[in-house]
């Protein structure tokens, strides 16, 4: 029996359980200085002036960088991962992402937006100095919540985004949906809030960079979900240098959750600071800082309606969602609630027609980006909640309403209304098995027992289907003279145990010892180009390639 078909102990655990893991804050660079970002205390303000003179004379300060200097040096800006053509307004006009400099020059648009980057001999010295930077702010009206932002006359985050709508988008057929609703025997309506979350990977974000004056090469250690996307962004978009002059290395990573897919301002800043001040520079986020500077997740409000016939079968589905994009459209942010979940909107049910209208709303808050499932759990939450509510309204069981609406196994491959090809699945049997394992029928007795102890007991049921595994990437397998097998991948583990998974696959396929395999990951130069780890793609995409 091969390794792939049995549980094996993780290779990487040996170093993690003995404190020998190497996370970015553990990277020792001789003579490294510490970077610290001075951040906006205002949700929205105009910057009248920044005076760093007093701060520069503080003990231990090496230098301070402000946005105007980066502009003068031609340093590029951050931006969204989607080209304009991939996601635009439904009337065809371009969306608004805003324009996010590494260090803002004229306006701050959320609490936590970086204004200056202080480099000093220690973090305490950098913080002491940052307190001496005099920033003259003219505070402006701000909007934080979706409802505030879309209210008539609300202050605008970006003047070109009318009503603070960064992009509106739709799928399905509005008129046909309306026609189907007109024939409904029953309509269920629900309003849902999916609140904002701060990602909080256990290891906060961090980066350490150095510039080699002799060779003109940059080296960046960064906690990420993939070295290549960050290397691409920094080389092409920000530093505007040939790719081979930048090596990005991601060592062990203390959790990602989508947060660590993106390039954040502090990563190129440590490289720029290293070049400017002539020493390696490290920046580590503190937890409090993470709340203000990491991208956030979720934050959407939806109104959904489902039309049913007299037997509880779905006739049509209608959703209107506003999601809070924050102050800038960065990374995957603008597409999180529209194009990313577009193929899973109908869930596992036969939905003959639907209309899904989604608006991205700009607010004076931390930008919202990819987070755990990124749009698809949110879509599942909406349809599963409305199915539950409909069941109650129509006097059906939570299981019964689903049984009446599942896509049937004999209908596979099934092309859903939104265009997803569901090639396999037996949802009825799956439900049956699940109810049995959960002892669904035994619930009343369990509830009675709980009540006797003064406890409340509830239960829930939800289905989840996801279009995933996008973006297969290359795998390099090389054999060293020392008899080891090096497996290079463009993905990067942050808890998934890829060193074990990939080694098991390669060992099985090549018939070489499991112990002889080394995974080369998280290195933009040594590993083959890849899109990083995200969207549950590695076991299918990259490991599939290895197989």
């Amino acid at each position: 029996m091969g390794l792939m078909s049995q549980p094996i102990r993780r290779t990487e655990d040996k170093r993690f359980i003995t404190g020998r893991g190497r996370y970015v804050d553990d990277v020792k660079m001789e003579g490294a200085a510490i970077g610290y970002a001075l951040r906006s205390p205002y949700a929205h303000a105009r910057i009248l002036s920044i005076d760093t003179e007093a701060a520069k004379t503080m003990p231990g300060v090496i230098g301070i960088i402000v946005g105007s200097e980066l502009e003068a040096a031609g340093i590029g800006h951050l931006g969204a991962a989607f080209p304009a053509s991939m996601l635009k307004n439904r009337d065809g006009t371009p969306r608004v992402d805003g324009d996010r400099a590494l260090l803002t020059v004229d306006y701050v648009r959320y609490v936590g937006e970086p204004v200056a980057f202080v480099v000093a001999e220690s973090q305490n010295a950098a913080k002491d100095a940052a307190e001496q930077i005099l920033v003259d702010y003219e505070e402006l009206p701000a909007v934080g919540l979706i409802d505030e932002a879309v209210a008539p006359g609300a202050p605008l985050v970006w003047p070109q985004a009318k009503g603070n709508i960064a992009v509106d988008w739709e799928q399905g057929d509005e008129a046909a949906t309306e026609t189907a609703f007109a024939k409904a025997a029953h309509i269920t309506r629900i309003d849902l809030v999916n609140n904002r979350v701060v990602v909080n990977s256990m290891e906060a974000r961090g980066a350490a960079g150095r510039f080699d004056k002799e060779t003109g090469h940059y080296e960046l250690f960064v906690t990420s979900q993939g070295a290549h996307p960050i290397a691409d962004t920094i080389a092409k978009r920000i530093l505007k240098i040939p790719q081979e002059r930048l090596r990005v290395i991601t060592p062990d990573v203390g959790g990602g959750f989508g947060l660590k897919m993106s390039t954040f301002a502090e990563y190129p800043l440590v490289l720029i600071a290293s070049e400017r001040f002539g020493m390696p520079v490290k920046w580590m986020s503190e937890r409090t800082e993470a709340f203000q500077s990491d991208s956030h997740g979720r934050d959407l409000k939806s109104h959904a309606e489902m039309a049913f016939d007299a037997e509880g079968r779905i006739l049509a589905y209608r959703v209107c969602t506003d999601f809070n994009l924050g102050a800038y459209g960065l990374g995957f942010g603008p597409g999180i609630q529209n194009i990313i979940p577009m193929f899973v909107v109908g869930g596992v049910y036969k939905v003959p027609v639907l209309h899904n209208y989604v608006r991205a709303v700009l607010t004076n808050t931390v930008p919202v980006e990819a987070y755990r499932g990124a749009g698809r759990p949110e879509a599942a939450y909406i349809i599963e909640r409305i199915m539950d509510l409909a069941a109650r309204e129509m006097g059906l069981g939570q299981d019964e309403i689903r049984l009446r609406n599942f896509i049937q196994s004999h209908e596979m491959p099934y092309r859903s209304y939104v265009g997803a090809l569901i090639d396999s699945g037996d949802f009825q049997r799956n439900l049956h098995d699940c109810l049995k394992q959960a002892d669904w029928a035994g619930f009343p007795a369990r509830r009675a027992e709980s009540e006797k102890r003064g406890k409340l007991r509830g239960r829930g049921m939800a289905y989840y289907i996801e279009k995933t595994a996008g973006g297969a990437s290359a795998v390099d397998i090389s054999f060293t003279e020392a008899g080891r097998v090096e497996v290079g991948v463009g993905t990067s583990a942050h808890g998934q145990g890829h060193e074990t998974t990939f080694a098991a696959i390669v060992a099985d396929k090549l018939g070489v010892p499991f112990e002889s395999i080394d995974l080369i990951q998280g290195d933009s130069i040594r590993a083959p180009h890849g899109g990083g780890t995200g969207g549950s793609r590695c076991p299918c995409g990259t490991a599939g390639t290895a197989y």
Partner: protein
Amino acid sequence: MVGTVSVAFSVNGRDVKAKVEPRTLLVTFLRENLGLTGTHVGCDTSQCGACCVLLDGRSVKSCTILAVQADGASVTTIEGLGTPEKLHPMQIAFNENHGLQCGFCTPGMIMSAVDFAQGNAEPTPDQVREWLEGNICRCTGYHNIVASVEAGARAMAKA
């Protein structure tokens, strides 16, 4: 004006003497001065427990103690517990029970667990969960961590 203070303590059985700024945290001293980077910093608020070490045998959060407060004490970090070649029973238990994913909380989790196990050879899952109040994991959902601590406590009692 502010100068430095002398500290002398034992870390993983080795005597350490140094002059530090009074505001130096124990975790900073362990990581920066001694290079013991197995002790992690996960928060600013003493809540996450990634920085747990043993101070005179009891688990404490090294991010909430000044290095100078440890003067004269004995400190054990994850590096002093066991090595990849000779693992401590609690380390083995975490490996065998898949009690970790990204590994960032793990050193603190293990140090906390070792302290717990000293007086609990046969813990119940509820006792383990109560004890782990001060250790946050973001990956695993705790189930396997609890199983690891239970197994580790039993193994420590036998060792």
